[in-house]
């Protein structure tokens, strides 16, 4: 088992080594002539406006919360799925009851609309127009 994880460890080491070396060699080879335009944030060719530290939509949090609980359930199901065949019908039933309980939770979420993305209206983005105008003027 340790040797299997050893392969992963070697893989991680090779990945770190590869990235470090290639970035370092590229830095040695490339010419470095930074301009203001080059150092701007690249966002699909659009000019960026405002700060990236905006308040996120609460939906992300709810989805992450649901994901966390289903994650724990999957972790518990993996050992069960590994051995349930050797236990016959009893082992099957234990897992089936567990899955039905999860299915109940899933049905509840679905029915209540927590899995829908567009239920609450999105708050409008607040852009300070005065400041924007000043920035445009100065350019």
């Amino acid at each position, binding site marked *: 088992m340790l040797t299997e994880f050893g392969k992963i460890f070697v893989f991680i080491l090779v990945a770190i080594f590869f990235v470090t070396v290639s970035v370092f060699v590229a830095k040695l080879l490339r010419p470095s002539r930074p301009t203001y335009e080059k150092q701007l944030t690249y966002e699909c060719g659009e000019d960026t406006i405002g700060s990236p530290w905006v308040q996120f939509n609460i939906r992300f949090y709810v989805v992450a919360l649901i994901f966390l609980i289903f994650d724990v359930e999957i972790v518990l199901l993996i*050992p069960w799925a*590994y051995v349930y065949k050797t236990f016959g019908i009893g082992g099957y039933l234990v897992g089936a009851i567990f899955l039905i309980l999860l299915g109940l939770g899933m049905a509840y979420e679905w029915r209540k609309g927590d899995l829908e993305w567009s239920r609450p209206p999105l708050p409008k983005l607040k852009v300070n127009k005065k400041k924007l105008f000043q920035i445009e003027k100065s350019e």
Partner: protein
Amino acid sequence: MTVYDIIFYLFALITVGSAFFVVTLRNIVYSAFFLLFTLFGVAGLFVLLSADFIAVVQLVIYVGAILVLLLFGVMLTHNITQVQIKTGTLQIIPSAIAVLILAFSLIKIFLNTNWKTVPLTVQSSSVEGLGVLLLNQYSVVFELIGILLLIALIGAASMARR
């Protein structure tokens, strides 16, 4: 010093070093990202203890889900850039006493414990043993965990909806 010792100290260094940055950095988002390395290092330590399932669970749940939840929690916070996190020292004397008591008891435990070490052997995966235990002795607990998760799911969703 075997190669296992070197790997152990490497992971220990990752864990402790990034934990240090988690508590000292002033930007809460950077702290959350350093927590990723801390949890990853702990997963590595679990692997060295031959706890393969726990190590993978550590990665899947803590790194995969709880950290994402934490980051979303941070990003949901209003005016995140204006938050001032205090990392100074405030109550020196009480904290010094607490740290001394904790350090003393830890060192005492460290010295008094009879550390049992087993020679390194190549073990098979522990998932099968866990599955057998889950279906034999702990099948009731297994179902109870299912009910607990159901309650957590419904409770979390109904609280977050408000």
